[in-house]
């Protein structure tokens, strides 16, 4: 959960103070980068069996572009933001979410194979085996990679709901506001996402 800044900083940013904007940028860039990384298919080692310390350059550029556009839009549309209606982090997540959705629509023509049924935990461990590293760390990394692949295999709406609620610490009402759905719809998405993840991950453990 992101702590809110002093309301006066937000008021100054709305009034056009570039220094206040920089303060907001520094405060929120981490969580927004994290959200975009989790949402985009190029997130850390997903879908390509890369070791966890390798980060696809192209993916980093996409994340950077979306993060950049998120904050530029914040500045451009700052007059429309009403602090009484929503937290700034909610508003930023909404912008970033819409940009991620745009990105998915544009990149649908070149899907990456995210078929997690083709790999098991043991297979992935064998692929990334490295005798110099402690087994436990390797096991954790492999679990994390498989989880990310399973997350990426979820439909976009289910993934959005899960990432916002579980990882970004946003409430169900905030998630509903960001995604433009009702709270009941968000909870339904969360339940379906958890069910599918359970099935996929249990299958991988076998």
């Amino acid at each position, binding site marked *: 959960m992101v702590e809110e800044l002093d309301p006066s900083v937000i008021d100054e940013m709305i009034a056009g103070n570039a220094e206040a904007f920089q303060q907001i940028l520094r405060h929120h860039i*981490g*969580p927004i980068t994290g959200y975009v990384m989790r949402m985009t298919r190029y997130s850390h080692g997903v879908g390509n069996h890369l070791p966890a310390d390798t980060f696809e350059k192209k993916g980093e550029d996409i994340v950077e572009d979306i993060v950049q556009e998120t*904050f530029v839009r914040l500045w451009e549309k700052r007059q429309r933001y009403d602090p009484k209606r929503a937290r700034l982090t909610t508003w930023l997540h909404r912008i970033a979410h819409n940009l991620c959705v745009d990105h998915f629509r544009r990149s649908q023509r070149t899907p990456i194979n995210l078929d997690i049924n083709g790999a098991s935990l043991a297979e992935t461990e064998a692929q990334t085996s490295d005798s110099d590293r402690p087994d436990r760390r390797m096991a954790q990394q492999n679990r*994390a990679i498989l989880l990310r692949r399973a997350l990426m295999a979820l439909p976009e709406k289910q993934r959005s709901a899960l990432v916002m*609620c579980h990882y970004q610490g946003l409430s169900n009402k905030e998630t509903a506001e960001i995604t433009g759905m009702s709270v009941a719809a968000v909870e339904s998405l969360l339940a379906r996402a958890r069910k599918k993840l359970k099935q996929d991950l249990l299958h991988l453990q076998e």
Partner: protein
Amino acid sequence: MMNLDRLQTIINAYGNDAARWPADERQAALTFINKSSAARQVLQASVATSEELDAWLDSDMFLDSPEFEQIKHRIGQRATARILDRVIKIPADSNLERFFTWLLPDPTSRSISFWKPGLVASLPLVLGMVLGSLTETGIRLDSTGAEDALVENQAWDEELYLLALTDQMPRQWSGDWTEE
């Protein structure tokens, strides 16, 4: 109002860890579980699979890792520079700033257009042509004094010669006007 259906919905959506339940319903759900054996059964039934899934989800606390800090720092530095570069142009309070914002191509834009600088560069040329066409030139017949008129005529002829872009100066212009 908390009931079995609502509790089941909450557990299905958020898992069995009460810390992840909606804050405004958490206390009511916990109170309900304490009072109702049926509610405790619903919770117990979900423990095994829910805890396992939460363990999986929590294994990817990537945002807390030093690796993420490095990536975030890298992205943050580059994005911040680009954002500020774009944002600083946006306020454009003065007319001059607004003019330069309009004029200069945006390096982050995919389609950089150079017609604006071209248009601005051609403005002095157009202005010169307009001024030239409006300015009266030629031999002033009302000059006072014959010498002034001759000097002025010579200057005018030399100017015409230069404009003609030819090496051959007409005979009547090459001589000394004072002799004729």
